[in-house]
Protein backbone atom coordinates (compact mmCIF):
# COMPACT_ATOMS: atom_id res chain seq x y z
CA UNK A 1 0.00 0.00 0.00
CA UNK A 2 1.43 3.35 -0.86
CA UNK A 3 1.80 6.06 1.73
CA UNK A 4 -0.87 8.39 0.43
CA UNK A 5 -3.49 5.64 0.32
CA UNK A 6 -2.56 4.60 3.83
CA UNK A 7 -3.00 8.19 4.91
CA UNK A 8 -6.42 8.30 3.34
CA UNK A 9 -7.41 5.18 5.23
CA UNK A 10 -7.16 6.88 8.59
CA UNK A 11 -8.34 10.17 9.97
CA UNK A 12 -6.20 13.33 10.00
CA UNK A 13 -4.01 13.69 13.07
CA UNK A 14 -6.04 16.47 14.68
CA UNK A 15 -9.19 14.39 14.47
CA UNK A 16 -7.49 11.35 15.91
CA UNK A 17 -6.21 13.43 18.83
CA UNK A 18 -9.69 14.82 19.44
CA UNK A 19 -11.31 11.39 19.35
CA UNK A 20 -8.74 9.82 21.65
CA UNK A 21 -9.03 12.74 24.07
CA UNK A 22 -12.81 12.38 24.11
CA UNK A 23 -12.44 8.68 24.89
CA UNK A 24 -10.12 9.43 27.79
CA UNK A 25 -12.37 12.15 29.18
CA UNK A 26 -15.50 10.06 28.91
CA UNK A 27 -13.95 7.01 30.53
CA UNK A 28 -12.26 9.10 33.22
CA UNK A 29 -15.51 10.83 34.15
CA UNK A 30 -17.74 7.78 33.96
CA UNK A 31 -15.44 5.00 35.21
CA UNK A 32 -12.21 6.48 36.54
CA UNK A 33 -13.61 9.02 38.95
CA UNK A 34 -15.96 6.61 40.74
CA UNK A 35 -13.02 4.27 41.38
CA UNK A 36 -10.91 7.10 42.73
CA UNK A 37 -13.61 8.46 44.98
CA UNK A 38 -14.34 5.06 46.54
CA UNK A 39 -10.69 4.75 47.56
CA UNK A 40 -10.36 8.34 48.76
CA UNK A 41 -13.56 8.31 50.75
CA UNK A 42 -12.69 4.95 52.29
CA UNK A 43 -9.40 6.31 53.58
CA UNK A 44 -10.61 9.86 54.30
CA UNK A 45 -10.36 9.31 58.05
CA UNK A 46 -7.11 7.42 57.80
CA UNK A 47 -6.02 3.81 57.83
CA UNK A 48 -7.20 3.21 61.39
CA UNK A 49 -10.77 4.19 60.67
CA UNK A 50 -10.67 2.05 57.54
CA UNK A 51 -9.46 -0.96 59.47
CA UNK A 52 -12.01 -0.38 62.25
CA UNK A 53 -14.81 -0.19 59.71
CA UNK A 54 -13.80 -3.51 58.19
CA UNK A 55 -13.37 -5.37 61.45
CA UNK A 56 -16.88 -4.71 62.79
CA UNK A 57 -18.60 -8.02 63.63
CA UNK A 58 -21.49 -7.11 61.33
CA UNK A 59 -19.09 -6.66 58.44
CA UNK A 60 -17.43 -9.96 59.17
CA UNK A 61 -20.76 -11.75 59.26
CA UNK A 62 -21.89 -9.99 56.07
CA UNK A 63 -18.67 -11.10 54.43
CA UNK A 64 -19.21 -14.67 55.58
CA UNK A 65 -22.76 -14.63 54.30
CA UNK A 66 -21.69 -13.25 50.92
CA UNK A 67 -19.07 -15.98 50.59
CA UNK A 68 -21.57 -18.63 51.65
CA UNK A 69 -24.16 -17.51 49.12
CA UNK A 70 -21.60 -17.41 46.32
CA UNK A 71 -20.18 -20.77 47.40
CA UNK A 72 -23.60 -22.36 46.90
CA UNK A 73 -24.86 -20.41 43.89
CA UNK A 74 -21.73 -20.49 41.73
CA UNK A 75 -21.05 -24.26 41.79
CA UNK A 76 -24.71 -24.97 41.04
CA UNK A 77 -24.60 -22.68 38.06
CA UNK A 78 -21.33 -24.23 36.93
CA UNK A 79 -22.88 -27.68 36.92
CA UNK A 80 -25.86 -26.28 35.05
CA UNK A 81 -23.63 -24.43 32.58
CA UNK A 82 -21.63 -27.55 31.81
CA UNK A 83 -24.72 -29.70 31.36
CA UNK A 84 -26.50 -27.12 29.21
CA UNK A 85 -23.51 -26.45 26.96
CA UNK A 86 -22.84 -30.17 26.52
CA UNK A 87 -26.41 -30.84 25.44
CA UNK A 88 -26.65 -27.75 23.25
CA UNK A 89 -23.21 -27.76 21.65
CA UNK A 90 -22.69 -31.46 21.05
CA UNK A 91 -26.14 -32.56 19.91
CA UNK A 92 -28.84 -31.50 17.50
CA UNK A 93 -32.40 -31.33 18.73
CA UNK A 94 -35.57 -29.41 18.07
CA UNK A 95 -36.18 -26.32 20.15
CA UNK A 96 -32.49 -25.69 20.72
CA UNK A 97 -32.71 -22.01 19.82
CA UNK A 98 -35.63 -21.55 22.19
CA UNK A 99 -33.66 -23.21 24.97
CA UNK A 100 -30.72 -20.83 24.41
CA UNK A 101 -33.08 -17.85 24.54
CA UNK A 102 -34.67 -19.13 27.76
CA UNK A 103 -31.25 -19.56 29.36
CA UNK A 104 -30.55 -15.89 28.64
CA UNK A 105 -33.89 -14.84 30.10
CA UNK A 106 -32.66 -13.84 33.59
CA UNK A 107 -30.40 -11.22 31.98
CA UNK A 108 -33.42 -9.31 30.75
CA UNK A 109 -35.34 -9.50 34.01
CA UNK A 110 -34.92 -6.61 36.42
CA UNK A 111 -33.09 -7.79 39.57
CA UNK A 112 -35.98 -6.51 41.65
CA UNK A 113 -38.36 -8.79 39.79
CA UNK A 114 -35.91 -11.69 40.22
CA UNK A 115 -36.34 -11.26 43.97
CA UNK A 116 -40.06 -10.63 43.74
CA UNK A 117 -40.82 -13.93 42.00
CA UNK A 118 -39.42 -15.87 44.96
CA UNK A 119 -41.44 -13.80 47.41
CA UNK A 120 -44.53 -14.68 45.41
CA UNK A 121 -43.56 -18.35 45.54
CA UNK A 122 -42.29 -18.72 49.09
CA UNK A 123 -43.35 -15.57 51.01
CA UNK A 124 -45.84 -15.53 53.88
CA UNK A 125 -48.73 -14.63 51.57
CA UNK A 126 -47.63 -16.93 48.78
CA UNK A 127 -49.04 -20.10 47.34
CA UNK A 128 -46.64 -22.16 49.42
CA UNK A 129 -46.55 -19.77 52.37
CA UNK A 130 -48.91 -21.64 54.67
CA UNK A 131 -47.26 -24.96 54.08
CA UNK A 132 -43.81 -23.51 54.70
CA UNK A 133 -44.91 -21.83 57.92
CA UNK A 134 -46.55 -25.01 59.21
CA UNK A 135 -43.34 -26.91 58.58
CA UNK A 136 -41.26 -24.10 60.04
CA UNK A 137 -39.26 -23.61 56.87
CA UNK A 138 -38.14 -20.09 56.17
CA UNK A 139 -36.95 -19.21 52.68
CA UNK A 140 -37.76 -15.54 52.27
CA UNK A 141 -35.87 -13.18 54.60
CA UNK A 142 -33.41 -16.03 55.16
CA UNK A 143 -30.35 -17.56 53.55
CA UNK A 144 -32.22 -19.90 51.14
CA UNK A 145 -34.01 -16.90 49.62
CA UNK A 146 -30.71 -15.08 49.14
CA UNK A 147 -29.23 -18.14 47.49
CA UNK A 148 -32.22 -18.62 45.17
CA UNK A 149 -32.29 -14.98 44.10
CA UNK A 150 -28.54 -15.08 43.50
CA UNK A 151 -28.78 -18.26 41.44
CA UNK A 152 -31.48 -16.61 39.35
CA UNK A 153 -29.51 -13.50 38.48
CA UNK A 154 -26.25 -15.39 37.82
CA UNK A 155 -28.00 -18.24 36.03
CA UNK A 156 -26.80 -17.60 32.44
CA UNK A 157 -23.15 -16.61 33.01
CA UNK A 158 -21.36 -19.96 32.74
CA UNK A 159 -23.65 -21.47 30.10
CA UNK A 160 -23.41 -18.35 27.97
CA UNK A 161 -19.63 -18.43 28.02
CA UNK A 162 -19.40 -22.14 27.23
CA UNK A 163 -22.06 -22.68 24.56
CA UNK A 164 -20.39 -20.73 21.73
CA UNK A 165 -16.97 -22.04 22.73
CA UNK A 166 -18.07 -25.67 22.64
CA UNK A 167 -20.05 -25.16 19.45
CA UNK A 168 -16.96 -23.79 17.77
CA UNK A 169 -14.90 -26.79 18.86
CA UNK A 170 -17.30 -29.29 17.33
CA UNK A 171 -17.48 -32.95 18.30
CA UNK A 172 -14.59 -34.62 16.48
CA UNK A 173 -12.19 -34.74 19.39
CA UNK A 174 -14.84 -36.25 21.63
CA UNK A 175 -15.78 -38.75 18.94
CA UNK A 176 -12.15 -39.72 18.58
CA UNK A 177 -11.92 -40.28 22.32
CA UNK A 178 -15.04 -42.45 22.39
CA UNK A 179 -13.76 -44.52 19.46
CA UNK A 180 -10.52 -45.02 21.35
CA UNK A 181 -12.54 -46.59 24.14
CA UNK A 182 -12.94 -43.68 26.56
CA UNK A 183 -16.15 -43.64 28.58
CA UNK A 184 -18.31 -40.53 28.93
CA UNK A 185 -16.62 -39.22 32.03
CA UNK A 186 -13.12 -39.82 30.65
CA UNK A 187 -14.09 -38.08 27.42
CA UNK A 188 -15.41 -35.08 29.32
CA UNK A 189 -12.61 -34.81 31.84
CA UNK A 190 -9.65 -35.54 29.58
CA UNK A 191 -10.77 -34.09 26.24
CA UNK A 192 -13.61 -31.56 26.66
CA UNK A 193 -12.64 -29.94 29.94
CA UNK A 194 -9.03 -29.07 29.00
CA UNK A 195 -10.34 -27.47 25.81
CA UNK A 196 -12.83 -25.24 27.59
CA UNK A 197 -11.03 -24.56 30.84
CA UNK A 198 -10.22 -20.91 30.19
CA UNK A 199 -13.69 -20.08 29.00
CA UNK A 200 -15.12 -21.93 31.96
CA UNK A 201 -12.88 -20.04 34.35
CA UNK A 202 -13.95 -16.74 32.84
CA UNK A 203 -17.60 -17.70 33.15
CA UNK A 204 -17.06 -18.68 36.79
CA UNK A 205 -15.36 -15.37 37.52
CA UNK A 206 -18.16 -13.31 36.01
CA UNK A 207 -20.73 -15.46 37.76
CA UNK A 208 -18.90 -15.04 41.04
CA UNK A 209 -18.51 -11.28 40.67
CA UNK A 210 -22.20 -10.91 40.08
CA UNK A 211 -23.10 -13.37 42.87
CA UNK A 212 -21.03 -11.48 45.43
CA UNK A 213 -22.06 -8.06 44.17
CA UNK A 214 -25.76 -8.54 43.50
CA UNK A 215 -27.90 -5.90 45.13
CA UNK A 216 -31.45 -5.59 43.82
CA UNK A 217 -32.56 -9.21 43.90
CA UNK A 218 -31.08 -10.02 47.30
CA UNK A 219 -32.32 -6.71 48.68
CA UNK A 220 -35.90 -7.72 47.96
CA UNK A 221 -35.67 -11.15 49.61
CA UNK A 222 -33.28 -10.24 52.41
CA UNK A 223 -35.36 -8.46 55.04
CA UNK A 224 -32.15 -6.62 55.93
CA UNK A 225 -31.57 -8.32 59.25
CA UNK A 226 -28.12 -7.17 60.34
CA UNK A 227 -25.74 -9.99 61.01
CA UNK A 228 -28.16 -12.52 59.55
CA UNK A 229 -29.42 -11.75 56.05
CA UNK A 230 -27.27 -8.80 55.10
CA UNK A 231 -24.71 -9.43 52.40
CA UNK A 232 -21.83 -7.05 51.75
CA UNK A 233 -23.59 -4.95 49.09
CA UNK A 234 -26.66 -4.65 51.30
CA UNK A 235 -24.48 -3.65 54.21
CA UNK A 236 -22.99 -0.87 52.11
CA UNK A 237 -26.48 0.52 51.69
CA UNK A 238 -27.24 0.29 55.41
CA UNK A 239 -24.06 2.14 56.33
CA UNK A 240 -24.66 4.74 53.64
CA UNK A 241 -28.20 5.39 54.82
CA UNK A 242 -26.87 5.78 58.37
CA UNK A 243 -24.57 8.52 57.02
CA UNK A 244 -21.61 6.41 58.04
CA UNK A 245 -19.81 7.25 54.80
CA UNK A 246 -16.30 6.17 55.78
CA UNK A 247 -17.52 2.72 56.72
CA UNK A 248 -19.77 2.51 53.65
CA UNK A 249 -16.90 3.31 51.33
CA UNK A 250 -14.49 1.10 53.27
CA UNK A 251 -16.82 -1.85 52.77
CA UNK A 252 -17.41 -0.77 49.18
CA UNK A 253 -13.66 -0.85 48.62
CA UNK A 254 -13.79 -4.60 49.27
CA UNK A 255 -16.26 -4.92 46.43
CA UNK A 256 -14.08 -2.69 44.27
CA UNK A 257 -11.24 -5.06 44.98
CA UNK A 258 -13.45 -7.93 43.86
CA UNK A 259 -14.06 -6.01 40.64
CA UNK A 260 -10.34 -5.49 40.08
CA UNK A 261 -9.56 -9.14 40.75
CA UNK A 262 -12.24 -10.11 38.23
CA UNK A 263 -10.85 -7.76 35.59
CA UNK A 264 -7.29 -8.91 36.17
CA UNK A 265 -8.33 -12.53 35.99
CA UNK A 266 -10.18 -11.78 32.77
CA UNK A 267 -6.99 -10.36 31.28
CA UNK A 268 -5.02 -13.43 32.25
CA UNK A 269 -7.69 -15.78 30.98
CA UNK A 270 -8.03 -14.08 27.62
CA UNK A 271 -4.25 -14.09 27.21
CA UNK A 272 -4.15 -17.81 28.00
CA UNK A 273 -6.99 -18.43 25.62
CA UNK A 274 -5.20 -16.59 22.85
CA UNK A 275 -2.10 -18.64 23.61
CA UNK A 276 -4.13 -21.79 23.28
CA UNK A 277 -5.78 -20.75 20.03
CA UNK A 278 -2.98 -18.67 18.63
CA UNK A 279 -1.57 -20.95 16.01
Amino acid at each position, binding site marked *: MNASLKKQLTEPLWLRVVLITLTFLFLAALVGLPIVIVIIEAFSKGWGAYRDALTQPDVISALKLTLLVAAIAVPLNVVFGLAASWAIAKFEFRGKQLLITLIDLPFSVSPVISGLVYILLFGAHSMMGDWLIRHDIQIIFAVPGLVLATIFVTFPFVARELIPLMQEQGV*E*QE*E*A*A*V*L*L*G*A*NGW*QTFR*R*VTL*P*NIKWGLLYGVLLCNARAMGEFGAVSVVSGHIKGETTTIPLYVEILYNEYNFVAAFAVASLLLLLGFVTLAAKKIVSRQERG*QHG*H
Partner: protein
Amino acid sequence: MGIEVRNIGKQFGAFAALDNISLSINSGELVALLGPSGSGKTTLLRIIAGMESADVGEILLYGAAANNKPAGERNVGFVFQHYALFRHMTVFDNIAFGLTVRPKETRPSKAAIRERVFNLLKMVHLENFHDRYPHQLSGGQRQRVALARALAVEPKMLLLDEPFGALDAKVRQELRRWLRRLHDEIHLTSVFVTHDQEEAMEVADRVVVMSNGRIEQIGTPEEVYHHPANAFVYDFLGNYNEFTGWQENAGSALNLIDYERQTDAPAGAKIVKVFARPHDMDVSKTDTFGGESIAAKVMHINPAGALVKLELERVRNPGLLLQAEISQDAVLAQAIRKSDVVYVRPRATRIFMNS
Protein backbone atom coordinates in the same frame (compact mmCIF):
# COMPACT_ATOMS: atom_id res chain seq x y z
CA MET B 1 -14.78 -62.06 6.39
CA GLY B 2 -13.64 -58.81 7.94
CA ILE B 3 -16.55 -56.44 7.54
CA GLU B 4 -19.95 -57.39 6.26
CA VAL B 5 -22.63 -54.85 5.50
CA ARG B 6 -26.09 -56.25 4.79
CA ASN B 7 -28.94 -54.19 3.31
CA ILE B 8 -28.09 -51.05 5.21
CA GLY B 9 -30.45 -48.07 4.86
CA LYS B 10 -30.28 -44.65 6.46
CA GLN B 11 -32.57 -41.64 6.11
CA PHE B 12 -31.83 -38.09 7.18
CA GLY B 13 -35.31 -36.62 7.15
CA ALA B 14 -36.60 -37.05 3.61
CA PHE B 15 -33.10 -37.61 2.24
CA ALA B 16 -31.99 -41.21 1.73
CA ALA B 17 -28.32 -41.11 2.67
CA LEU B 18 -27.95 -44.86 2.17
CA ASP B 19 -30.28 -47.10 0.22
CA ASN B 20 -30.00 -50.86 0.64
CA ILE B 21 -26.22 -51.10 0.77
CA SER B 22 -24.56 -54.51 0.90
CA LEU B 23 -20.83 -54.99 0.90
CA SER B 24 -18.29 -57.56 2.03
CA ILE B 25 -14.74 -56.67 2.89
CA ASN B 26 -12.26 -59.46 3.36
CA SER B 27 -9.99 -59.41 6.33
CA GLY B 28 -6.69 -57.80 5.47
CA GLU B 29 -8.13 -56.00 2.49
CA LEU B 30 -7.77 -52.29 1.75
CA VAL B 31 -10.98 -50.92 0.26
CA ALA B 32 -11.80 -47.43 -0.95
CA LEU B 33 -15.30 -45.95 -0.76
CA LEU B 34 -15.28 -43.59 -3.71
CA GLY B 35 -17.94 -41.10 -4.67
CA PRO B 36 -18.89 -37.46 -4.92
CA SER B 37 -20.03 -35.58 -1.84
CA GLY B 38 -23.49 -36.60 -0.78
CA SER B 39 -23.00 -40.12 -2.13
CA GLY B 40 -23.26 -41.61 1.35
CA LYS B 41 -19.70 -42.87 1.64
CA THR B 42 -18.90 -41.08 4.88
CA THR B 43 -22.23 -42.08 6.39
CA LEU B 44 -21.47 -45.71 5.57
CA LEU B 45 -18.05 -45.42 7.19
CA ARG B 46 -19.54 -43.84 10.31
CA ILE B 47 -22.13 -46.61 10.53
CA ILE B 48 -19.40 -49.25 10.34
CA ALA B 49 -17.53 -47.37 13.09
CA GLY B 50 -20.66 -47.14 15.23
CA MET B 51 -20.80 -43.36 15.16
CA GLU B 52 -24.16 -43.44 13.40
CA SER B 53 -26.78 -46.12 13.54
CA ALA B 54 -28.45 -47.57 10.48
CA ASP B 55 -32.24 -47.44 10.17
CA VAL B 56 -32.33 -50.90 8.67
CA GLY B 57 -29.84 -53.62 7.89
CA GLU B 58 -27.02 -55.40 9.64
CA ILE B 59 -23.34 -54.86 10.28
CA LEU B 60 -21.14 -57.85 11.00
CA LEU B 61 -17.60 -57.38 12.16
CA TYR B 62 -15.49 -60.52 11.95
CA GLY B 63 -18.64 -62.57 11.82
CA ALA B 64 -20.27 -61.06 14.90
CA ALA B 65 -23.37 -58.89 14.76
CA ALA B 66 -22.28 -55.38 15.69
CA ASN B 67 -25.40 -53.26 15.30
CA ASN B 68 -25.84 -52.77 19.01
CA LYS B 69 -22.19 -52.70 19.91
CA PRO B 70 -21.05 -49.28 21.16
CA ALA B 71 -18.43 -47.57 19.01
CA GLY B 72 -15.80 -47.85 21.72
CA GLU B 73 -16.10 -51.66 21.78
CA ARG B 74 -15.98 -52.34 18.06
CA ASN B 75 -12.22 -52.51 17.95
CA VAL B 76 -11.91 -50.04 15.10
CA GLY B 77 -9.27 -47.43 14.57
CA PHE B 78 -10.73 -44.26 13.07
CA VAL B 79 -8.86 -41.49 11.29
CA PHE B 80 -10.67 -38.18 10.77
CA GLN B 81 -10.28 -35.86 7.83
CA HIS B 82 -9.32 -32.97 10.10
CA TYR B 83 -7.22 -35.23 12.34
CA ALA B 84 -9.26 -34.55 15.51
CA LEU B 85 -6.07 -34.64 17.56
CA PHE B 86 -6.44 -33.65 21.19
CA ARG B 87 -4.89 -30.25 20.89
CA HIS B 88 -3.98 -29.81 24.54
CA MET B 89 -2.04 -33.09 24.61
CA THR B 90 1.43 -33.83 23.31
CA VAL B 91 1.92 -36.24 20.44
CA PHE B 92 2.89 -38.89 22.98
CA ASP B 93 -0.24 -38.38 25.08
CA ASN B 94 -2.41 -38.35 21.98
CA ILE B 95 -1.11 -41.72 20.86
CA ALA B 96 -1.19 -43.17 24.38
CA PHE B 97 -4.76 -41.95 25.04
CA GLY B 98 -6.58 -45.10 23.95
CA LEU B 99 -4.39 -47.20 26.21
CA THR B 100 -4.56 -44.95 29.24
CA VAL B 101 -8.36 -44.84 29.28
CA ARG B 102 -8.62 -48.60 29.67
CA PRO B 103 -9.83 -49.95 32.99
CA LYS B 104 -7.04 -50.85 35.40
CA GLU B 105 -7.30 -54.60 34.75
CA THR B 106 -6.59 -54.33 31.03
CA ARG B 107 -4.44 -51.22 30.98
CA PRO B 108 -0.82 -51.88 30.01
CA SER B 109 1.92 -50.76 32.38
CA LYS B 110 3.43 -47.33 31.94
CA ALA B 111 6.57 -48.85 30.48
CA ALA B 112 4.57 -50.99 28.05
CA ILE B 113 2.57 -47.96 26.92
CA ARG B 114 5.78 -46.02 26.43
CA GLU B 115 7.25 -48.78 24.35
CA ARG B 116 4.16 -49.13 22.20
CA VAL B 117 3.95 -45.40 21.60
CA PHE B 118 7.58 -45.13 20.58
CA ASN B 119 7.24 -48.11 18.24
CA LEU B 120 4.31 -46.37 16.58
CA LEU B 121 6.20 -43.09 16.40
CA LYS B 122 8.98 -44.92 14.63
CA MET B 123 6.52 -46.46 12.23
CA VAL B 124 5.10 -43.05 11.30
CA HIS B 125 8.59 -41.50 11.22
CA LEU B 126 7.97 -39.04 14.03
CA GLU B 127 10.35 -40.40 16.71
CA ASN B 128 11.60 -36.96 17.67
CA PHE B 129 8.22 -35.32 17.86
CA HIS B 130 6.81 -37.08 20.92
CA ASP B 131 6.70 -33.98 23.10
CA ARG B 132 5.33 -31.61 20.47
CA TYR B 133 1.79 -30.31 20.48
CA PRO B 134 -0.46 -30.80 17.44
CA HIS B 135 -0.30 -27.13 16.50
CA GLN B 136 3.48 -27.43 16.17
CA LEU B 137 3.14 -30.04 13.41
CA SER B 138 2.42 -29.80 9.71
CA GLY B 139 -0.79 -31.22 8.29
CA GLY B 140 0.92 -34.37 7.05
CA GLN B 141 2.60 -34.93 10.41
CA ARG B 142 -0.68 -34.44 12.23
CA GLN B 143 -2.37 -37.01 10.05
CA ARG B 144 0.39 -39.50 10.76
CA VAL B 145 -0.03 -38.89 14.49
CA ALA B 146 -3.76 -39.46 14.06
CA LEU B 147 -2.99 -42.74 12.33
CA ALA B 148 -0.58 -43.81 15.05
CA ARG B 149 -3.20 -42.93 17.67
CA ALA B 150 -5.77 -45.06 15.90
CA LEU B 151 -3.34 -47.98 15.64
CA ALA B 152 -2.21 -47.78 19.26
CA VAL B 153 -5.25 -49.65 20.54
CA GLU B 154 -4.43 -52.51 18.11
CA PRO B 155 -7.72 -52.33 16.26
CA LYS B 156 -8.94 -55.17 14.05
CA MET B 157 -10.05 -52.64 11.43
CA LEU B 158 -8.87 -49.24 10.33
CA LEU B 159 -11.40 -46.72 9.01
CA LEU B 160 -10.21 -43.51 7.39
CA ASP B 161 -12.52 -40.63 6.49
CA GLU B 162 -10.98 -38.61 3.65
CA PRO B 163 -7.64 -38.99 5.40
CA PHE B 164 -5.71 -36.84 2.94
CA GLY B 165 -8.49 -34.45 2.03
CA ALA B 166 -7.09 -31.51 3.98
CA LEU B 167 -3.51 -31.84 2.72
CA ASP B 168 -1.83 -30.20 -0.23
CA ALA B 169 -1.16 -32.12 -3.41
CA LYS B 170 2.46 -33.14 -2.84
CA VAL B 171 1.96 -34.31 0.74
CA ARG B 172 -1.13 -36.22 -0.36
CA GLN B 173 0.92 -38.14 -2.90
CA GLU B 174 3.55 -39.06 -0.34
CA LEU B 175 1.07 -40.11 2.32
CA ARG B 176 -0.91 -42.20 -0.13
CA ARG B 177 2.09 -44.30 -1.07
CA TRP B 178 3.13 -44.50 2.53
CA LEU B 179 -0.33 -45.72 3.54
CA ARG B 180 -0.20 -48.39 0.82
CA ARG B 181 3.22 -49.58 2.03
CA LEU B 182 2.05 -49.53 5.64
CA HIS B 183 -0.93 -51.64 4.72
CA ASP B 184 1.27 -54.12 2.91
CA GLU B 185 3.30 -54.45 6.12
CA ILE B 186 0.54 -54.79 8.72
CA HIS B 187 -2.37 -56.12 6.62
CA LEU B 188 -5.07 -54.52 8.68
CA THR B 189 -8.59 -54.63 7.26
CA SER B 190 -8.96 -51.05 6.11
CA VAL B 191 -11.66 -48.88 4.59
CA PHE B 192 -11.02 -45.38 3.45
CA VAL B 193 -13.35 -42.76 2.08
CA THR B 194 -12.29 -40.50 -0.74
CA HIS B 195 -13.76 -38.42 -3.52
CA ASP B 196 -10.50 -38.53 -5.46
CA GLN B 197 -10.59 -41.35 -8.01
CA GLU B 198 -6.86 -41.22 -8.55
CA GLU B 199 -6.30 -41.75 -4.84
CA ALA B 200 -8.71 -44.67 -4.75
CA MET B 201 -7.03 -46.28 -7.78
CA GLU B 202 -3.56 -45.83 -6.40
CA VAL B 203 -4.11 -47.10 -2.88
CA ALA B 204 -6.98 -49.58 -2.76
CA ASP B 205 -7.18 -53.32 -3.43
CA ARG B 206 -10.81 -52.83 -4.30
CA VAL B 207 -12.88 -49.75 -5.03
CA VAL B 208 -16.53 -49.27 -4.10
CA VAL B 209 -18.02 -46.53 -6.30
CA MET B 210 -21.04 -44.85 -4.70
CA SER B 211 -23.55 -42.22 -5.72
CA ASN B 212 -26.82 -41.03 -4.21
CA GLY B 213 -26.67 -43.52 -1.38
CA ARG B 214 -26.22 -46.52 -3.66
CA ILE B 215 -23.31 -48.66 -4.73
CA GLU B 216 -22.67 -48.29 -8.46
CA GLN B 217 -19.87 -50.81 -8.75
CA ILE B 218 -17.46 -52.84 -6.66
CA GLY B 219 -14.24 -54.06 -8.18
CA THR B 220 -10.48 -53.83 -8.42
CA PRO B 221 -9.14 -50.54 -9.75
CA GLU B 222 -8.50 -52.37 -13.01
CA GLU B 223 -12.10 -53.57 -13.24
CA VAL B 224 -13.83 -50.32 -12.41
CA TYR B 225 -11.64 -48.31 -14.72
CA HIS B 226 -11.61 -50.59 -17.71
CA HIS B 227 -14.97 -52.22 -17.23
CA PRO B 228 -17.19 -49.57 -15.71
CA ALA B 229 -20.60 -50.95 -14.89
CA ASN B 230 -22.48 -47.85 -15.97
CA ALA B 231 -22.25 -44.32 -17.23
CA PHE B 232 -21.90 -42.88 -13.73
CA VAL B 233 -18.81 -44.91 -12.95
CA TYR B 234 -17.34 -44.16 -16.36
CA ASP B 235 -18.01 -40.46 -15.90
CA PHE B 236 -16.73 -40.33 -12.36
CA LEU B 237 -13.45 -42.07 -13.11
CA GLY B 238 -12.22 -39.71 -15.80
CA ASN B 239 -12.78 -37.27 -18.62
CA TYR B 240 -14.48 -38.46 -21.76
CA ASN B 241 -15.79 -37.46 -25.18
CA GLU B 242 -19.34 -38.07 -26.18
CA PHE B 243 -20.53 -39.05 -29.67
CA THR B 244 -23.76 -40.13 -31.22
CA GLY B 245 -23.93 -43.46 -33.00
CA TRP B 246 -26.31 -46.10 -34.15
CA GLN B 247 -26.53 -49.85 -33.93
CA GLU B 248 -28.72 -52.35 -35.76
CA ASN B 249 -29.22 -54.22 -32.53
CA ALA B 250 -27.37 -54.73 -29.26
CA GLY B 251 -23.97 -56.29 -29.82
CA SER B 252 -23.74 -55.47 -33.55
CA ALA B 253 -21.21 -53.03 -35.01
CA LEU B 254 -21.27 -49.44 -33.99
CA ASN B 255 -21.43 -46.55 -36.46
CA LEU B 256 -20.84 -42.95 -35.56
CA ILE B 257 -23.14 -40.35 -37.04
CA ASP B 258 -20.56 -37.69 -36.12
CA TYR B 259 -18.01 -38.90 -38.72
CA GLU B 260 -17.15 -36.71 -41.68
CA ARG B 261 -18.36 -39.43 -43.98
CA GLN B 262 -21.81 -39.43 -42.57
CA THR B 263 -23.66 -42.65 -42.10
CA ASP B 264 -27.21 -41.83 -41.24
CA ALA B 265 -28.99 -44.36 -39.13
CA PRO B 266 -31.26 -46.65 -41.13
CA ALA B 267 -34.84 -46.95 -40.00
CA GLY B 268 -35.18 -49.26 -37.00
CA ALA B 269 -31.59 -48.80 -35.84
CA LYS B 270 -31.02 -47.79 -32.26
CA ILE B 271 -29.46 -44.39 -31.60
CA VAL B 272 -26.88 -44.60 -28.79
CA LYS B 273 -24.52 -42.32 -26.95
CA VAL B 274 -20.93 -43.37 -27.43
CA PHE B 275 -18.13 -42.51 -25.07
CA ALA B 276 -14.35 -42.49 -25.40
CA ARG B 277 -11.55 -41.48 -23.05
CA PRO B 278 -9.22 -38.70 -24.23
CA HIS B 279 -6.29 -41.11 -24.27
CA ASP B 280 -8.25 -43.45 -26.49
CA MET B 281 -8.36 -40.91 -29.29
CA ASP B 282 -6.25 -41.13 -32.44
CA VAL B 283 -5.18 -37.78 -33.82
CA SER B 284 -3.81 -37.13 -37.26
CA LYS B 285 -3.12 -34.01 -39.27
CA THR B 286 -4.32 -35.65 -42.43
CA ASP B 287 -7.44 -37.71 -42.67
CA THR B 288 -5.89 -41.16 -42.70
CA PHE B 289 -9.08 -42.74 -41.41
CA GLY B 290 -10.95 -42.76 -44.67
CA GLY B 291 -13.60 -40.34 -43.55
CA GLU B 292 -14.30 -42.27 -40.33
CA SER B 293 -13.06 -39.34 -38.32
CA ILE B 294 -14.05 -35.92 -37.06
CA ALA B 295 -12.39 -32.72 -38.18
CA ALA B 296 -11.51 -30.44 -35.31
CA LYS B 297 -9.52 -27.31 -34.69
CA VAL B 298 -6.81 -27.26 -32.02
CA MET B 299 -7.85 -24.67 -29.44
CA HIS B 300 -5.27 -25.30 -26.79
CA ILE B 301 -2.25 -27.50 -26.18
CA ASN B 302 -1.27 -28.42 -22.63
CA PRO B 303 2.14 -30.11 -22.73
CA ALA B 304 2.44 -30.81 -18.98
CA GLY B 305 2.44 -34.51 -18.08
CA ALA B 306 3.30 -37.75 -19.80
CA LEU B 307 0.68 -37.17 -22.49
CA VAL B 308 0.02 -33.90 -24.26
CA LYS B 309 -3.53 -32.71 -23.74
CA LEU B 310 -5.28 -31.24 -26.76
CA GLU B 311 -8.44 -29.23 -26.55
CA LEU B 312 -10.32 -29.40 -29.84
CA GLU B 313 -13.38 -27.81 -31.32
CA ARG B 314 -15.35 -29.66 -33.98
CA VAL B 315 -15.27 -27.98 -37.35
CA ARG B 316 -18.75 -29.09 -38.38
CA ASN B 317 -20.30 -28.33 -34.99
CA PRO B 318 -18.45 -25.36 -33.52
CA GLY B 319 -19.02 -25.18 -29.79
CA LEU B 320 -18.85 -28.96 -29.40
CA LEU B 321 -15.48 -29.67 -27.82
CA LEU B 322 -13.33 -32.76 -27.83
CA GLN B 323 -10.37 -33.76 -25.71
CA ALA B 324 -7.49 -35.91 -26.77
CA GLU B 325 -4.32 -37.05 -25.04
CA ILE B 326 -1.49 -38.20 -27.25
CA SER B 327 2.22 -38.74 -26.81
CA GLN B 328 4.74 -35.96 -27.00
CA ASP B 329 6.37 -37.78 -29.93
CA ALA B 330 3.16 -37.85 -31.94
CA VAL B 331 2.71 -34.11 -31.46
CA LEU B 332 6.25 -33.38 -32.55
CA ALA B 333 6.26 -35.81 -35.46
CA GLN B 334 3.14 -34.27 -36.93
CA ALA B 335 4.03 -30.72 -35.89
CA ILE B 336 0.60 -30.12 -34.39
CA ARG B 337 0.16 -26.49 -33.38
CA LYS B 338 -2.56 -24.32 -32.09
CA SER B 339 -5.26 -23.46 -34.70
CA ASP B 340 -4.35 -26.46 -36.87
CA VAL B 341 -7.18 -28.60 -38.09
CA VAL B 342 -6.72 -32.26 -37.19
CA TYR B 343 -8.74 -35.44 -37.68
CA VAL B 344 -9.64 -37.44 -34.61
CA ARG B 345 -11.19 -40.82 -34.16
CA PRO B 346 -11.97 -42.79 -31.03
CA ARG B 347 -9.88 -45.92 -30.84
CA ALA B 348 -11.88 -47.57 -28.11
CA THR B 349 -15.47 -46.68 -27.38
CA ARG B 350 -18.08 -47.61 -24.87
CA ILE B 351 -21.83 -47.48 -24.81
CA PHE B 352 -24.13 -47.84 -21.83
CA MET B 353 -27.50 -49.27 -22.60
CA ASN B 354 -29.24 -47.48 -19.74
CA SER B 355 -28.03 -44.05 -20.74
